[in-house]
């Protein structure tokens, strides 16, 4: 659950917890406003958790935690042009005593991407306010550090060790527009099958709390509020504090320079690309479907689901296998990058015959485009041919487009249609978003080499 690309998730997916009044895309947290604001007292008490470590009596109380950290938490607001009405807002907390505050990258991303359009300011729980500037970002882990000279606050203590499952935890922030709030929940440790480490927090995180700190019972920061599922109950995510420690140390020497930030983001995305594509080591795991070996769950952070109509009374049977890496990096509204997903559509038929079977398969063999904006990417360039794969021939089309701001990154789609046989066939669409070109092509070659015609022995 590292990166939550809601658009790629079949259920609508988790949302980032920034409150963006201008947000129109349904994926982000402007819509969290619609979530019911229900004060939900947690039924789980400290005593009921068998393996919870005994904690100091004075810290068991959410009021105590809030009282201790109140001075260190700020609200961060984005304003468009010279307007005083805000466009988006989130939460931040002091990480040094001289004006550095940690928040989420997605809270400040619009300002980082359009520095001439937006400005940022902070607001303390006591009503003081002033300007802040972004000095460092970690887009892969959705973190950013802002600096202000107008507000010095006691820094919060970041703990590098991830919390254990079942420990009491608290999350602090400015949800929606109801003022400084603390929620109480349980830390469920690191999320399984996640490309980037995330902590699963079973507690409420609502829009506007993004970038706020999450504490253990001792009042130490264990993570940074980042996202949650909109239509599920209390499934929320934190960025582990260890990433915040690294960014804080890097930010101490940094100054606010929009051009340097842009270059830094592009470099981080390229690094993410290398990390993602480097994570597929060894031959790709395949599964056999109607005689074809096709790439399946090729890494622990890739999720695959299958749908289909196996009814033999149909004139043709279609099974679809969808796989997604969930490694995408949120870059800005409606653009996330650094992700891989693929779909295999397997068709079998006893009734159609060669000519009609090929026509039926054609319907699935269209090159799939991914949505992009002209300010972010260039047009697609395509090439295609009939290629000999292992044991069968396939028509393959490859289309790629080049990113405009983040130079060196490409969106690539591959469409494969099998040509052998008149009773079975498949099409496969591979989509790679925001990755480096050469490693992408190497991955595509491995993806195609993994495909094989390997029919099982005839049934007795």
């Amino acid at each position, binding site marked *: 659950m590292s990166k939550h690309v809601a658009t790629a998730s079949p259920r609508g997916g988790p949302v980032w917890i920034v409150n963006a009044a201008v947000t*129109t895309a349904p994926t982000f947290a402007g819509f969290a406003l619609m979530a019911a604001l229900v004060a939900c007292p947690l039924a789980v008490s400290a005593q009921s958790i068998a393996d919870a470590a005994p904690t100091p009596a004075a810290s068991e109380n959410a009021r105590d935690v809030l009282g201790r950290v109140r001075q260190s938490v700020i609200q961060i607001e984005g304003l468009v042009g010279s307007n005083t009405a805000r466009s988006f807002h989130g939460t931040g907390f002091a990480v040094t005593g001289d004006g550095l505050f940690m928040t989420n990258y997605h809270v400040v991303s619009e300002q980082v991407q359009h520095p001439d359009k937006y400005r940022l300011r902070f607001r303390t729980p006591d009503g003081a306010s002033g300007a802040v500037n972004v000095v460092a970002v970690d887009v892969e882990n959705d973190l950013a550090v802002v600096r202000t000279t107008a507000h010095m606050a006691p820094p919060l203590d970041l703990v590098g060790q991830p919390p254990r499952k079942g420990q009491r935890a608290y999350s602090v922030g400015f949800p929606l527009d109801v003022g400084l709030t603390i929620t109480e929940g349980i830390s469920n440790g690191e999320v399984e099958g996640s490309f980037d480490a995330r902590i699963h927090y079973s507690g409420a995180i609502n829009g506007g709390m993004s970038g706020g700190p999450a504490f253990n019972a001792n009042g130490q920061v264990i993570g940074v509020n980042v996202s949650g599922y909109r239509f599920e109950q209390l499934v929320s995510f934190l960025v582990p504090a260890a990433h915040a420690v690294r960014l804080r140390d890097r930010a101490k020497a940094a100054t606010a320079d929009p051009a340097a930030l842009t270059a830094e983001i592009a470099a981080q995305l390229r690094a993410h690309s290398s990390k993602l594509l480097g994570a597929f080591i060894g031959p790709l795991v395949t599964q056999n479907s109607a005689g074809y070996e096709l790439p399946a769950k090729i890494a622990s952070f890739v999720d695959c689901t299958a749908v289909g109509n196996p009814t033999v009374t149909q*004139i*043709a049977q279609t099974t679809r296998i969808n796989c997604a890496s969930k490694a995408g990096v949120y870059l800005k509204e409606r653009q996330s990058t650094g992700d891989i997903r693929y779909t295999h559509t397997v068709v079998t038929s006893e009734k*159609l015959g*060669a*000519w*009609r*079977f*090929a*026509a*039926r*398969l*054609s*319907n699935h*063999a*269209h*090159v*799939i*485009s*991914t*949505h*992009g*904006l*002209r*300010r*972010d*990417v*260039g*047009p*697609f*360039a*395509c*090439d*295609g*041919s*009939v*290629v*000999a*794969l292992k044991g069968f*021939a396939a*028509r*393959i*089309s*490859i*289309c*790629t*487009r*080049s*990113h*405009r701001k983040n130079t060196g990154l*490409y969106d690539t789609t591959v469409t494969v*249609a099998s*040509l*052998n046989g*008149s009773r079975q066939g498949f099409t496969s669409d591979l989509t790679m978003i925001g990755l480096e*070109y050469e490693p992408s*092509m190497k991955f*595509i*070659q491995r993806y195609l*080499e993994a495909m094989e015609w390997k029919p099982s022995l005839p049934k007795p």
Partner: protein
Amino acid sequence: MEAIATQTLIVESAGGHWRMRDRVILDAGKRSFSIGRSVNADVTLDDDYVAALHVRIDVLPDGRMLASDLGSVNGIVIEGTRHERAEGLPLAGGRLQIGRTRLRIRSANETLAPEKLLTRGTPLSRISPVWLVGGAAVVEVAQTAYATWLVAPTDPAIAFAGSVLRALIFVAAWAGGWALLSRIIVGQWRWVGHLAIALIVAVVYQGVSDAVDVGWFALSLPLLRSSLLWVPIAVILGVLFYLHIRLASTISVQRAALMVGATIAVISAGTVWYVERSLARDVNAVTGLPARLYPDTWRLTASQPLDRFMRRMDDLRGLADRKREALSPQDGEFEE
């Protein structure tokens, strides 16, 4: 010319394209006569826009005819020009219009131009258009049956009936439009001919494009530029328009070819330019979709080894970069 003065005169009323509708034969030797709505006129017209006594025609000994207005309100129209209170107005070719009636005054011994030659036409045009329409319709139905069979719908009967019905309505509307134009221009509907043209061209186009589709697959030809897909459509439209215009008018071969050619060329150039420009700026369009798949036994070319295919991708990156660079910095700046 002396003879004409003694010849019998005939007054004809005419419809569209000056085709004769009705005629009055005047008494032999009559050289001057009146036309009007009244029974007192020598030639009586049933036209509310004509005066009781509207015009008097005098035929001179040399054969010239002069019209004089007898005090009508609407006057006399000769070759499209209206003359009021005219006196001794010469008629061109014996033609005039009063009220809403076209008249032609002819002499019994007029000299006629030789008959026009009928065009011999192509072997195809010597077959009866009814046969052509019937034959093309049979092929059209067969093609529809093939298309329905190919996609194997759940209910083939209704899909087939729907396709045939759509084709029928479209062809009927198309041919009907041209028939109406023929009726206006040459005064004949010629709907069988237009129907034959529409059906034959549609059938040939469908047959050729199906064959090209199979050929494209058989030869594993590269992806096509989307804008070029307009070219065969432009050619087929050009052929259609040429044939229909020739049938619907008396326009010469050269003029028809020039007119249609120029129109299609301008529209094609505009469309190709528009599509190319749109595609150059459309970052989501996947251009040149591959053609339909066919059984692999129909493929005539060998498959490429994967390594060789992947090596081609080095060029693809350069192409994508050039397409990106072709966008202006402002492109998409205001896109939401």
